């Protein structure tokens, strides 16, 4: 099977100096742009990148200043997976060889408006790597709630006030929904663990067929965090168990990191403007949800 491929591990020592995504207008400390930049370093110049309307397309394609050195295209908001599939079909039909097609979309573009097309892409097993950079809200339009916004998040459409604690819904279980398609390879990652992320990208690069990576990517603007702590905060999300590193391959789930003890979720939350309003009760609910999820993952996946 493809997962048994002997692929060389990418490390800070052997990763290429070559950059493919630069000169864009992302906010300082943008986690999404870091995810795109790192992924493209792994995927290389012979890459077609498709990006829907969203942060990365808004900051990367401002005529005449194009920020991708490789081939890249903006797609309609709901159509990143279908356009990537079309690119793949076109390239295949024309006999083009030795390349990769990648889709980069945010959490809203993936779990909400783009989900139907993504499901179709996986169903057809089109040879596309789909990377969802998850900053937990519609950031490009000004921090509105998406299907991946966690409980208790203050956004511009889930205000926190007397009557509501911010978002009252929990984060959609995207990774497992994707896995339920029986996709060849899916993984979660975090820009806080870049080496884990890039090696998952590298693994997906070498798999023929539909693959998916859900990468946690901080957003200082939307999260109310200092710009220099973006990598740190994305790491803390994993360490406190509110995000997790896992893979799905050959019908099996695997936890890549199973900490004996979690770092404090309360501390992680309190560092961020979007969670500042949370009461002890709210935080307890978040922790209870976390523990329930981990109990289930450990029971089923280990």
């Amino acid at each position, binding site marked *: 099977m493809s997962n048994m491929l002997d692929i060389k591990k990418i490390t800070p020592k052997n990763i290429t100096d070559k950059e493919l995504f630069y000169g864009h207008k992302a906010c300082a400390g943008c986690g999404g742009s870091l995810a795109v930049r790192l992924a493209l370093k792994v995927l290389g110049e012979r890459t077609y990148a498709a990006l829907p309307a969203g942060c990365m397309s808004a900051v990367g394609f401002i005529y005449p200043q*194009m920020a991708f050195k490789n081939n890249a295209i903006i797609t309609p908001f709901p159509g990143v997976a*279908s356009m990537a599939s079309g690119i793949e079909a076109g390239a295949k*039909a024309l006999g083009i060889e030795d390349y990769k097609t990648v889709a980069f979309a945010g959490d809203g573009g993936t779990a909400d408006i783009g989900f139907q097309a993504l499901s179709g892409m996986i169903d057809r097993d089109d040879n596309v790597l789909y990377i969802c950079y998850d900053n937990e809200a519609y950031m490009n339009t000004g921090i509105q709630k998406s299907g991946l916004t966690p409980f208790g998040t203050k956004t511009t459409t889930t205000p926190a006030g007397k009557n509501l604690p911010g978002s009252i819904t929990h984060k959609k279980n995207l990774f497992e929904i994707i896995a339920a398609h029986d996709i060849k390879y899916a993984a979660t990652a975090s820009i806080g663990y870049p080496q884990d992320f890039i090696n998952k990208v590298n693994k997906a690069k070498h798999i023929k067929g539909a693959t998916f990576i859900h990468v946690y990517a901080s957003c200082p603007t939307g999260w109310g965090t200092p710009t220099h702590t973006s990598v740190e905060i994305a790491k803390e999300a994993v360490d406190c168990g509110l995000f997790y590193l896992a893979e799905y391959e050959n019908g099996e789930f695997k936890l890549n990191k199973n900490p004996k003890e979690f770092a404090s979720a309360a501390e992680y939350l309190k560092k961020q403007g979007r969670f500042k309003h949370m009461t002890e009760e709210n935080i307890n609910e978040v922790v209870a949800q976390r523990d329930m999820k981990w109990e289930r993952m450990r029971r089923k996946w280990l």
Partner: protein
Amino acid sequence: MEQNIFISGDEAVAHGVRLSRPNVIAAYPITPQTITVERLSDMVECGDLKAEYMHVESEHSAICATMGASAVGARTFTASSSQGLLYMTEGLHYCSGGRYPVVMMNANRSVALPWSIYGDHRDSLSLLDCGWIQVYVEDAQEALDMTIQAFKIAEHKDVLTPMMVNLDGFILTHTYEMVSIPEQDKVDAFLPPFQTENKMCFENPKNMAFSSQPDDNTEFKYQQNEAMFNAVKVLKQTNKEFAQSFGRDYGDMVEEYRCDDADAILVTLGSVTGTVRVVVDKMRAEGKKVGLLKIRYMRPFPEKEIIATAKKVKAIGVIDKDISFGYEGTVFTNVNSALAKANSTVLKKNYIGGLGGRDITKNEIENMFNELLTGKLKKDGEHVEFFNLKVAIDE
């Protein structure tokens, strides 16, 4: 030798697509387009057509997938109708703005509500402004021939604009006719493989479908509009070359039928043309000076041609199988706008009918001609009439 076979309009389109050798087909089934995509699937399965056939999960994905394939330089085809076409709307604008020469067959069908699977023109006419070349055909042969021509027109370097071939749901899609199937080598000579600079490739990577600022946007839209005007020359040339290669000449933007000495003419779109043609012949035999102007292209719009025909006649009726609520039929609006620019004083009337698949009969057409021949409207000042209306209207 061209082979004559007895097939439906949908099948004729499928043969046109096969002969055009597209690289990628992405389509979602919808009545009455389905036979086309079923036949194309068969052709791919048996190897008659070497193309990637994508089973997309929606029309939105169909248009996105064809754009993606077109963006790497592939020849692409999709097909839809009615609700499906409307579901594509975002992508239709996107496709023309990105200058991706996708070719689409649209089986003209009414739009819900109320639900109706039957034919009228409200689907495509409501999308006139999305930047696609729109051609309407009269029969299955023209559907096949225009499918082949559509690739050549859309992909021309001065055009690079997507094109929609419209044929009436059921009346054309599901009716069987003898259709002449061109020979592959002659089609290959007429339509070489798609070549474009407007694509992503590894020799010269591109960032496509970018955003623009207020400083640039108007210029992009100006160029898009110019491309549509360029299409006028290209479609005429394409028709000429097609006639030379295959012996069938459809005229240019419009086809005039017995208009030269006519007093009254009817303007038509699509399959009703055939019925009007028969009525014109009958009335001519009775000594009545009537004629027919078949509009083939709604975009680019045949403004000059309509003005030229109007100069010859005293009265013009426009049959619209659609209605822009609160105003009039869309074909009429467009025809009238052309006439106004020429300060034409010709008598004009808009006949609305054939909605949701209702037949337009020879009798009704004769009544229209007879009204137009009187030189005045039945009801003074009432330029728009729903004909064959089965509800009482206050006198």
